[in-house]
C-alpha cells in the first residue's frame, strides 16, 4: 500500500485531531472561527468537540475532523540508517582491529546551551534507555566538555585530544540558535584544520532536521531518540571505513537513523 490517509476507526476515514488556541474570548463567534480555521486546514467536515476560555482573551479548542489529503509512502524522503548496528563488544573489536588505538571522541554543548541532557545521555557511563553511554566503550576515549563550551574552546580541545570525532548537542532552538551554533562550529573546524585532519563532526538534538547535514557543514545529524549504540556504530562505520581519505562528499540524504 503506498497511498494512505489517516485512520480513525475505519480504513480510509481520514480522521485527525487538532488542538489550538485563538486569541479571543469564548462565544459562538469564537467557535465559528475555530471551525473556519480547521476548514482552511483541510478538515471537512470539522467537529468542534471542546472549547474553553482561558483568562480574559483566549480560548482553547479541540477539533476532530476528516481530511481529504492522501499520502504516498513511496514519495517520502527520510534518512535511513546506512550502517550496521553493532553491540559494544563489536564496536570495541572493530576499533581494535582497524584503528589499533582508542578512538577519541570529544563532546560538548556549545553556545549558550546549558542543557547537557542530550550529550550526557550519549556520553555518560549511565547512558539512556538501558544502553550504556560511550564512556562505557573500552576502545573509546571520551572527553565530555559539558555545557556552554565556546567554539574556539571546542576546536582547541579537539585538536589537543586528537579527536577522531566531535559530538555536539543542541537542545535550545529559540531563534534557531541550534542552527547558528552548528554552522559556526563547522566553519571554525574547516578554518582551523585542513580536510583529512578534520574530525568527524556530528550534531544531535531533538529539533534538528536530519536532512540538513550538508547545509550545516557537518557529517551527520542525529535526531530525537538516538541511543549511544547508534552513535558508536556510526563512528566505527564512518571512521574505520575511511583510513586516510577525506570524508565522503556531504549530501543531505546521507545522514542516518
Amino acid at each position, binding site marked *: 500500500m503506498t497511498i494512505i490517509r489517516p485512520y480513525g476507526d475505519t480504513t480510509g476515514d481520514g480522521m485527525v485531531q487538532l488542538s*489550538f*488556541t485563538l486569541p479571543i474570548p469564548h462565544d459562538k463567534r469564537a467557535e465559528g472561527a475555530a471551525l473556519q480555521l480547521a476548514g482552511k486546514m483541510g478538515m471537512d467536515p470539522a467537529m468542534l468537540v471542546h472549547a474553553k476560555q482561558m*483568562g480574559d482573551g483566549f480560548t482553547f479548542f479541540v477539533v476532530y475532523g476528516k481530511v481529504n489529503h492522501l499520502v504516498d509512502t513511496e514519495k517520502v524522503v527520510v534518512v535511513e540508517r546506512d550502517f550496521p548496528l553493532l553491540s559494544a563488544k563489536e564496536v570495541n573489536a572493530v576499533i581494535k582491529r582497524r584503528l589499533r588505538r582508542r578512538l577519541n571522541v570529544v563532546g560538548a554543548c556549545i553556545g*549558550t546551551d*546549558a542543557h*547537557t541532557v542530550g550529550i550526557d545521555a550519549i556520553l555518560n557511563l*549511565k547512558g539512556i534507555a538501558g544502553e550504556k553511554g560511550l564512556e562505557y566503550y573500552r576502545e573509546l576515549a571520551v572527553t565530555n566538555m*559539558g555545557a556552554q563550551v565556546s567554539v574556539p574552546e571546542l576546536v582547541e580541545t579537539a585538536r589537543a585530544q586528537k579527536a577522531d570525532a566531535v559530538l555536539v548537542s543542541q537542545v*535550545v532552538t*529559540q531563534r534557531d540558535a541550534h542552527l547558528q551554533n552548528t554552522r559556526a562550529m563547522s566553519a571554525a573546524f574547516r578554518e582551523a584544520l585542513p580536510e583529512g585532519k578534520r574530525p568527524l563532526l556530528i550534531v544531535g538534538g531533538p529539533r534538528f532536521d536530519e536532512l540538513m547535514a550538508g547545509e550545516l557543514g557537518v557529517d551527520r545529524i542525529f535526531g530525537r531518540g538516538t541511543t549511544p549504540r547508534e552513535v558508536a556504530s556510526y563512528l566505527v562505520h564512518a571512521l574505520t571505513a575511511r583510513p586516510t581519505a577525506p570524508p565522503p562528499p556531504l549530501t543531505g540524504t546521507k545522514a542516518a537513523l
Partner: protein
Amino acid sequence: MAGKLNLDPTVVAKARRLAERAGGPVVELARSHTTVSVERAVLRLAGVHGADSDGIPWVNRLVDAVRADVGLGHGVSLPVFHAMRTTGVDDITVLAQKAAAGAVRFAVPAKKAEATAARRAAKRATGDGLKVVDRRRAERDRLIKRYGDPQQRPWIYLIVATGDIYEDIPQAQAAARAGADIIAVIRSTGQSLLDYVPEGATREGFAGTYATQENFRLMRAALDVTSKELGRYVRLTNYASGLCMPEMAAMAGMERLDMMLNDSMYGILFRDINPIRTFVDQRFSRQVHARAGIIINTGEDNYLTTADAVEAAHTVTVSQLLNEFFAHEAGLADWQLGLGHAFEINPEVPESFRLELAHALLARELFPDAPLKWMPPTKHMTGDVFRGNLLDGFFNLVGALTGQGILLVGMMTEAVVTPWLSDRDIALQNVRYVLAGAGNLHEDFVPAPGGFIQQRAERVLSEAVDLLDRIADDTLLNAIADGTFGIMKRPADRGKGLDGVAKHEDGYYNPVTEALEA
C-alpha cells in the same frame, strides 16, 4: 504527618551527624576564602549601581581595579573605603567610574587609624544596604498579612520564560490569576556562566529572561498589583546560582524576591563551576537569604535527570542532608528550606509509583518542617503529551499524598516546546483536579507496616547513611571529584570561576559577613 514510615530515629540522627562531618571542612574552606562575586555583592549592598557603556557593571570594574592593585585576599571593602577617604570622592559609584578610568590607586590602609576609619565607613555603607533588605522583609510580612497566603498546600509554582520581561509580566499575572501561588522567571540560558550581572530591563533572552535588578523590580511590582487584585500574596522566584550567586542573593533581598533557587552543588555538577568558588559563594548567598527571609529551593531533582532515579535515590537524600547542614550553618531556618526532589523514575519500571511515594514520603519525614519542593517528571516525558499529562497527574497525587510544600507544575509538553498558554491551563486543571479530589487523602493514607513503601524508604535511608559515611571519610570535595553525584566528575582544582577565588589574607574584612554572622 510524621511517623508513617516508622524510621529509626537513631539512623536519622546518624545521617545528620555524618552530613555535618562531611560538610564541616567545606564550611571551613568557605570561611577562609572570598570570591570576586562575594566582593561585588558587598559593593552592591554598599550602593554601587549601574554599568559602563559596554554593559559591564561598575561593581565588576571596581573589583577588578582593586584586585589589580592589591589582590582580593584582603577583601575590597578596606581598599575601597580607604580610597574614598584619600580621594575625597563621596559617591561610591563615582569612585568605581574613576577607578575604571585608572584614576584611583588602591592600597590596604597601613595605619591602624586609617584601617579603623575605612572599616567604619564600609560598615555604614553596607549597613544601609542591609537596612533595605530588612525593610523589604518587613514589607513582605505586611503584605502577606494583608493579602494572605495560599489557602492550600502545596503552593502552586509556575514558570514563565519568554526572554522579554515585558512579555513575562502579563504572562506571570495571567498565571497567578489562573492559580499560581509562586511565579518563577527562568533565566536566560547561559546566564549562570556570566561573571557579571546584566543591567536594566531586558527583552532578549534565550529560553529565559536575564535576571537583572531592574527585571526583579518590575516583576515584583507587577505581582504586587496582582496580589492585591487576587487577595493572595503571589511569590516571586529567581536563581541565586551560577558565577554571580552572591550578587543575585543581594539583589533578591533588595527587591523582595521571595524564593531563590540555591543549591549547594548544582553549579559544580551541572555547570562545571569550580567547587571552591561554589561553596564560598553559596555560604555568603545563604547568609543573605537568611537575613532577607527568602526561601531557598535546592536542586536535587537534577541528579535524577542524569542518574537513574531508583539507583540514585539515596544521592538525593544525601544532598538534601548536606543542603540542610549548609543552610542551617548559614543561618537559614527550617521554614526557608525548600529542599528539592523529583518524580523521575522511569514509568516502565515495575512499581514505579510506589517507589516515588516511598521516596517522597522519606523526604517529608526526614525534614518535617521544611517546605519541600516537589519537581515534576522531565526525563521520561517523551513528547507523547497524552501520557505526559497522565504522568503529571500521578506526580500531583504523590505531592498531595505526601504533603509537599511547593509543587512545580508539570507540563505535558515538557521536552517539546516552552509551555504554551493552553499547556499551562491544562496543567493547572490537572493540579486542581487532584488537589480538589484527593488533597486530603493523606489523612487516610498510611503505608502498611513493614510493607513495600516502608521497606523502600528504609533502604534508601540506609544507602544514604553508607554514602555519607564514605563521603565523610573521603571528604566531600573528593567525592564530588569522583563523580558521586549525578555521575559528574568535578575536581576541586578545575572548573569555571576558579580564578575568581582568593584565600583570605590576614586582616581580611567583609562588613556584610560580619553583620550577618553577628
